């Protein structure tokens, strides 16, 4: 075998190894590969995930919340979403709810008061849906283009379903001009 042919073989092996490394290094990375399965649906319809279904029934904005006797202000705006949650074939908990704005920033439900409906504190049985409201603080400038995200997983959402529902919010300036406090509906059976 001539020297040139041997050199060609070595170069070919090196090229294959380099190509393999390039494929391994190229996006999407591991976290992106294992990202949640997005299940999209319209506002007002049931969006069905692996072990739950969620319907965004109503949405409103407020400058203040009234939780018990406490009034809660915000530097942005409160987005209050009424949800109807159902379990599919076995008891389920919803442990994550958030909104994503147009630039991809995520805002989770506030922890300034208990929101058991979406923090894993409410067990939902099949056939026995639960209704209630959740509240999320967002910058006023982001409120016009929000997508609701709901999952039954708490922190690690990889390889599981996540519902995505666009929220029909138009103008929040009127809400901010008239900061009347609004109450947040506690979870209740909707069977």
């Amino acid at each position, binding site marked *: 075998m001539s020297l040139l042919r041997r050199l060609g073989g070595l170069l070919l092996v090196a090229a294959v190894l380099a190509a393999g490394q390039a494929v391994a290094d190229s996006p999407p990375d591991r976290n992106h590969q294992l990202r949640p399965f997005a299940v999209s649906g319209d506002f007002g319809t049931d969006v069905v995930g692996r072990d739950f279904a969620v319907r965004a029934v109503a949405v409103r904005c407020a400058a203040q919340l009234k939780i018990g006797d406490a009034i809660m202000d915000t530097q942005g705006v409160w987005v209050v979403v009424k949800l109807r949650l159902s379990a599919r074939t076995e*008891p389920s908990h919803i442990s994550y709810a958030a909104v994503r704005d147009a630039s991809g920033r995520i805002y989770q439900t506030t922890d300034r008061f208990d929101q058991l409906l979406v923090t894993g504190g409410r067990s939902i*049985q099949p056939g026995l849906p639960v209704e209630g409201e959740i509240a999320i603080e967002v910058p006023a400038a982001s409120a016009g283009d929000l997508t609701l995200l709901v999952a039954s997983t708490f922190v690690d959402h990889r390889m599981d379903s996540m519902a995505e529902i666009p929220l029909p919010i138009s103008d929040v300036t009127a809400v901010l001009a008239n900061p009347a406090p609004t109450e947040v509906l506690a979870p209740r*059976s909707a069977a």
Partner: protein
Amino acid sequence: MRGPDSLGRGWWRRNIWGLVAMLPALALMIYAAVYSDLEYWQRGRPSQAPSAADGSAEFAGVRLRLVELAPTTDLKRYGNAPFVPPDGVTVWRAVIEVESPDPETSPFCTILLEDEAGNRYDVNAEELSKARLPLANCRPDTEDPAPVSGRYRTVAHFALATGVDAVAVRLSFGGVDLVRYVRLTLRG
């Protein structure tokens, strides 16, 4: 790539068996890559432990038998007032007889109800949170006298949508066996 060899064969003819061998080699490589995940998934899947012909089952060191599975309306609230479930909800009660050589050391269990469509339900659902309910954990009730015979009953309550029928209960003993469960049905 060289030209024809002394027998006149081109590159493809010379390497045909190597190319054919690549297919099973590729299949083996993929199988080896997913084998550990597949085995882990299969070993973690809940599986049903065998039960006897009379519907009872021996599992986790105790003998279990379902003696009642029916809707109930006689629950009480704390304070003894009658408990009325939310609209559209029917309360089901399962009574399981447990026979243990030593009730003091009987393992704790988790009980699920199964309906005719295969859906599962937790004991003591949120819809029943205002009712006074037993713990339903396969242990002797501390309010009752200690069972002398080694035989006692554990009672579980479930919330189902009205119109849905329950058909079985599933019991698992996480402290004894993480993946197997016992499925009990009523036998005449």
